[in-house]
């Protein structure tokens, strides 16, 4: 467990240093994510070594954003003032994104072939 955690933290650390050092627009952990995918593709044994800890982390992913969510109590006033705009922006945009994504996916499948088996 400790080596696997150390490797995950190292990917994050390299990600943080590289994004800050090079001024990349990605958050450090996202670069760490890409490093993980690349490293596992190069060395499949690494994926199996990391898997138990990764599975544990992902099974409890939701827990980790509870503290940030509670922070909303400090901004309730702002939410109340902008409630209508926020609700409209959020709902319309989410529905649009689902519709556009699915329609484009289906259109490209029709155009290029490759329907579901």
């Amino acid at each position: 467990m400790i080596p696997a955690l150390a490797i995950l933290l190292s990917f994050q650390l390299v990600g943080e240093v590289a994004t800050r050092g090079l001024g990349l627009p990605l958050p450090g952990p996202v670069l760490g994510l890409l490093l993980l995918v690349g490293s596992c593709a190069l060395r499949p044994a690494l994926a199996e070594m990391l898997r138990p800890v990764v599975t544990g982390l992902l099974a409890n992913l939701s827990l980790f954003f509870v503290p940030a969510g509670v922070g909303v109590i400090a901004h309730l006033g702002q939410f109340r003032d902008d409630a209508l705009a926020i609700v409209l922006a959020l709902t319309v945009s989410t529905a649009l994104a689902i519709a556009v994504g699915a329609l484009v996916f289906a259109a490209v499948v029709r155009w290029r072939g490759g329907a579901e088996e």
Partner: protein
Amino acid sequence: MTDAALIWSYLSQEPLLWLTATLIAYFLGDSFFRRMNRQSWANPVLVAVILLSLVLWLTGTGYQTYFEGAQFVHFMLGPATVALGMPLYDNLRRVRKALAPLVAALVAGSVTAVVSVLAIGKAFGLNEVMLASLAPKSTTAPVAIGIAEGLGGEPTITAVLVLLTGIFGAIIATPLLNALGIRDWRARGFSLGVAAHGIGTARAFQVNETAGAFAGIGMGLNAVLTSIIAPLALHLFQ
């Protein structure tokens, strides 16, 4: 009664109390979610956030004090984001097999999610901090919080907007996609994962295994793409 007051003054200074409270609140939220047959509206994080906010309000505890304890949980967002690479790695073969529709739908869905929320928000006069907090709302929470921080948004507002987006997307997806006549499970799952991250992915898995796998791929790829396009899009609306 002096003793109780002394104990309280000790507890309210130490991280122990609020770390424990965070875990208990999440456990209660998760139990409620299971009892409600995992329906999207009964989201465990939303329940935990409401419970903790009530407790903080009743005890007159400030967010700073709470965060002293909760920061240990918050810290895990970083390694958990890195861990999201694993499902992406596991699905690399599926990604390669459907590369063209995946890339097209990813770009279309991701750009729509970011640009439309900024356009509507701007039209209704939301300020720049709120716009920056809204921009990554379709991205999985750990990444969205990182993006919002980088854009000058308020990460705590983003956390709640991300939750609400996921819940709304999970509820609306089935009727919306049926109305549009989309039958391909890959298209249905993928678009939901791109637009409504982990909560949408959990919903997709409930409906169909293939949809769930593609939702997970959509969530992972969109986390990367939104990191890049959110700053560009926000620039256009400032």
